[in-house]
């Protein structure tokens, strides 16, 4: 395999929650032992319930927060410890689109400035050239040039997300991190934005780290899928395999909730309703993080942590059902 564009190894992010007079300072491990690679031009979808650490992974990859441990390599270079000017210099390679299109655009700036800003701060364009390139970017995302002098509040959510995408591709990044970039939009707008992203990928060859709490949204755009639970990746693999033969009970549950009719799954389809809520990341369960809600829970799950085991069809899952060294493991590893 060639060198991945992005390589994340054993990423851990811990937040220190400041205590008060009566509360002690607590540590919240939002991301724990997360590793993944993204090849050039590839789309990795990261899917999991809200609070499972997806945004924290995105912000760590974007170097918007300091990981507590782990390594991040971009294009073969270690970018984990970059700071100041050195960090600013690599930023053009990776750009981000945020979830809420209403708060991610500066309300005091006109669209021409919003979209042109990356080009200006990196000294890539100025004057008439800048204006021409901003026009080109807006057209690229399906917005007319007459929008240039308008303010963000004059646009709908979908249009704003197009603006955010135009801004994010201005520097021709190699990786675009999309953190719930379509989650705030209605279904038809979602589809328009997903189509736009597909077009951009085939035209520009950008790799995506596509984050969503909805497995259904990523089915068509993802090459590979990583499923997160309580700050960990519990299953990872080619999208095709994840959707046709999910290995981890949590992935199965997520998939059973996807409303899109899929003939392969529809036959045996039954909505798996998980009991209880996602545990607090301040007090994660011992053993398998999913054992408090897992329909297949075994004794071993409550004390030991399952390791990632390769799955037929590609990828891996962290579940004792697939770990042949453990009783019951052969049951499902077909």
């Amino acid at each position: 395999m060639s060198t991945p564009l992005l390589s994340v190894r054993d990423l851990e992010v811990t937040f220190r929650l400041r205590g008060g007079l009566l509360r002690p300072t607590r540590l919240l491990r939002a991301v724990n032992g997360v590793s993944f690679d993204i090849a050039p031009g590839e789309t990795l979808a990261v899917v999991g319930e809200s609070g499972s650490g997806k945004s924290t992974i995105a912000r760590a990859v974007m170097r918007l927060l300091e990981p507590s441990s782990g390594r991040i390599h971009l294009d073969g270079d270690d970018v984990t410890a970059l700071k100041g000017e050195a960090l600013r210099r690599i930023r053009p390679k990776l750009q981000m689109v945020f979830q809420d299109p209403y708060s991610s655009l500066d309300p005091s700036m006109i669209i021409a400035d919003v979209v042109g800003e990356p080009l200006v701060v990196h000294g890539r364009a100025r004057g008439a050239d800048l204006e021409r390139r901003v026009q080109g970017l807006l057209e690229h995302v399906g917005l007319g040039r007459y929008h240039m002098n308008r303010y963000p509040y004059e646009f709908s959510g979908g249009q704003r997300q197009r603006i955010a995408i135009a801004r994010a591709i201005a520097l021709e990044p190699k990786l675009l991190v999309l953190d719930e970039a379509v989650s705030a939009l209605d279904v038809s707008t979602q589809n328009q934005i997903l189509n736009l992203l597909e077009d951009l990928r085939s035209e520009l060859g950008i790799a995506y780290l596509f984050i969503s709490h909805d497995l259904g949204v990523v089915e068509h755009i993802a090459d590979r899928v990583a499923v997160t639970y309580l700050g960990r990746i519990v299953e990872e693999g080619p999208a095709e395999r994840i959707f046709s033969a999910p290995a981890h009970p949590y992935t199965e549950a997520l998939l059973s909730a996807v409303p899109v009719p899929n003939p392969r799954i529809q036959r045996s389809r039954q909505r798996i309703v998980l009991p209880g809520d996602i545990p607090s990341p301040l007090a994660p369960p011992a053993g398998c993080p999913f054992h408090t809600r897992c329909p297949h829970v075994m004794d071993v799950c409550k004390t030991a942590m399952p390791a990632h085991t390769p799955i037929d069809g590609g990828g891996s899952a962290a579940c004792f059902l697939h770990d042949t060294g453990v009783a019951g493991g052969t049951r499902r590893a077909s």
Partner: protein
Amino acid sequence: MSEAAAGLEQLGASESARRRFLRRFRKQRPALYALGFLVLLALGALFAPWVAPYDPLTQNLDRVLESPSWDHWFGTDELGRDVASRTLFAARISLMAAFQAVLIALVIGVPPGLLAGLAGGWVDNLIMRFTDALMAFPPLILAVAIVAALGPSLTNAMIAVGILLSPTFLRLMRGTAMAVAHETYVEAARSIGCSQGWIIVRHILPNVISPLFVQISVFAGVAMLAEAGLSFLGLGAQPPDSSWGAMVGRGFRYISLSPSLIVFPGLAIAVTVLAFYVLGDGLRDALGREVRRED
């Protein structure tokens, strides 16, 4: 900084921002009337020597303490001076005093407020301790102490008022800067590779300015009231200068003989202060965030 200025100029952002504000402000009827009144008042004060029917200092001891009449619209005072002319000339002093106090409060309050909000940590702690200590003094005592130390004059009184108003500007700027610094668009700016200086000049400052305008307008009213109070007590405008507050203070001695002496300057204070408040309100609405539009 110069980089940021170049960016602004290049894309002509400031002019459009003004246009948008004007469009929304035009819908604020009461604020428009208030602004109209304040502009007229300022013009009247500026051109008082040409507009006023009489010289405000010319005495006519044959016609003292007269009620309003065709000759003297607002009546005459205890020395036979025309109250209407004196009220117009006093507007110069009162407006200038309010302007001075607000300017001083801005200069003292805004930079440390921004610094505290953006730097955080011990810098923030130090600045806020100092502010708390300042605010722990009873305001009137502090004002009297400052005037006593500097000597009674209108400018000194307004320095005192400015110092008293500054903590509000400081807190406002600190809170707004903190809130804006945590906005997603600031994180987004960092993610594209904007430097810290660029982020402050291009993203934080433009977004903390709006609430400041609102506060300036309201505080112009507060400063005018404070000036009136201090001048009433004899701590502000000194003869022969006269502000509205000073006129009310002197007229108070003749209240049983000629109530109109305090009615007109008193009314001028009330209406002008109200105008500043209403203007502040309208600015708040015109500068506030527009409601979200759904798809």
